[in-house]
């Protein structure tokens, strides 16, 4: 069949431009499109506005100085509460932060997907979110209640990266874990969306693993599909793999010390994805000895 959207991670990154707004799916240290992020690190693309329920995607991009503006309600490694590169970058004011509440973020993405300029939410009133986001506006209900609510602006994206369990060549993508996160919204809110997946399968085989409600992302919203086994590593991608807690601990340790981080980068992030996965395998073999 035509409509073959298969591409490599390098081809995906080749379509990005410096200064773009990039949405990254997943949540914290869960089902992050890490192989695509690693490919981005190998390119010259920089000065990005990154929109993310942040995890090590934000950490790696911040450590490499690729973020001009971060739009996020948090950055965390989940089992390790604080993302060390994110905290360090904030403490040296390395990028501009648009700090939004988790629900504001969701409705901002929804507004973008629905081609609305904003959506009204109660969240944010009374907090310092409006203080640190002076461009945020309120909107008054036109009905009898006259309520004044926060108008969360649409978080429209130039490009989105998401990682799912399965996809076909056309961009129909399936999650097999318990939580879809917001990956369909990221794709709908973006002008171009790139799906990496554990395995590309025939369309006819998609429903062999699970029911139709697991078909989260529709091909009409997808520009490119990348087969990238273990492509969410070291974040979780259940049921294909859990979070690699041992590796995440090593990442977090290294991130807290510039010298250790240089060594970590040299060992794991200086080659291509195949070299990365080989280095991870070697890391675990070494530990078992």
């Amino acid at each position, binding site marked *: 069949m035509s409509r073959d959207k298969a591409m490599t991670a390098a081809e995906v990154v080749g379509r990005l431009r410096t200064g773009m707004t990039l949405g990254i799916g997943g949540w914290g240290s869960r089902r992050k499109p890490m192989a695509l992020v690693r490919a981005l690190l190998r390119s010259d693309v920089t000065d990005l506005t990154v929109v993310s329920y942040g995890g090590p995607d934000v950490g790696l991009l911040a450590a490499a100085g690729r973020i001009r503006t971060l739009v996020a309600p948090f950055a965390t490694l989940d089992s390790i509460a604080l993302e060390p590169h994110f905290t360090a970058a*904030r403490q040296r004011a390395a990028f501009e932060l648009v700090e939004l509440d988790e629900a504001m973020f969701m409705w901002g993405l929804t507004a973008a997907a629905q081609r609305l300029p904003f959506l009204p939410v109660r*969240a*944010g009133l*009374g*907090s*310092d979110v409006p203080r640190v986001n002076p461009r945020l506006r309120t909107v008054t209900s036109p009905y009898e209640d006259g309520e004044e609510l926060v108008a969360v602006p649409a978080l429209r994206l130039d490009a989105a990266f998401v990682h799912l369990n399965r996809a076909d060549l056309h961009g129909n993508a399936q999650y097999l874990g318990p939580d879809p996160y917001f990956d369909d919204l990221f794709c709908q809110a973006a002008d171009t969306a790139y799906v990496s997946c554990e395995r590309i399968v025939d369309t006819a085989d998609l429903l062999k693993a699970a029911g139709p409600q697991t078909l989260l992302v529709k091909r009409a919203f997808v520009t490119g599909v990348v087969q990238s086994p273990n492509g969410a590593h070291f974040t979780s991608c259940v049921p294909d793999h859990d979070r690699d807690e041992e590796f995440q601990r090593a990442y977090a340790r290294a991130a807290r010390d510039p010298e250790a981080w240089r060594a970590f980068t040299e060992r794991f992030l200086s080659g291509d994805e195949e070299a990365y996965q080989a280095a991870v395998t070697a890391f675990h073999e070494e530990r078992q000895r």
Partner: protein
Amino acid sequence: MSGGTATTGVTRAEYCVVACAEAWRHAGEVLASPMGIVPTIGARLARLTFAPDLLLTDGEALLIGDVPAVGERADVVEGWLPYRQHLALVATGRRHVMMGAAQIDRHGNQNISCVGDWSRPTRQLLGVRGAPVNTLNNPTSYWVPRHSRRVFVERVDMVCGAGFDRAAEAGPSATRFHDVREVISDLGVFDFATPDRTMRLRALHPGVTAEQVAQATSFALTVPDEVPRTREPTAAELRLIREVIDPKGARDREVPA
């Protein structure tokens, strides 16, 4: 003191569990969202005893139908609550969350985002997370495992969860569903049942004095003439905590004896 209690050897952590559980006593058929180990044990204790209608999650996307020990998998799943539904559920109000606080002030303003000047913090923490949406939409309580002047501050550096003064300033849309209930620490239980809705000492855990609390708090608390003690756990509750919900003693790591 209620009858049938076995009060010998009750640890501070166990009093904290009971105090947390009490926060959900009259919650009804809503989601209990505990953050932290002691609140998690407390919510499960409430569900197993006096608040059987509570909904609980596995900490991820599932509503659990049974009550496993902390860290163990549930055998029964009764519902699905992925993050997108969880965030939407908050706005329905059918939830009582117990969040942590890096800083909290006398008005109940809470900070988990960063310490210092927001534009270049001295210590970046989690970010605002869901604190703004939580405090404006559903009942909210707080859990502080180590009561100190660094946490109970005169002014928080970044208002994440809105307190009473800030909600009032923001107007009727902010106060409409604003409902900050309690603060529970390793020293006692606090609420905002004062004319100006500032923090009041409501109960002391056994072994703690009001002076101790005052010394560990940066602002002046309202202290009634008679401050009750956190109630004793019943023998049945102690057994549930020790044998069913937390047999490995995770509570002692959060609140050391």
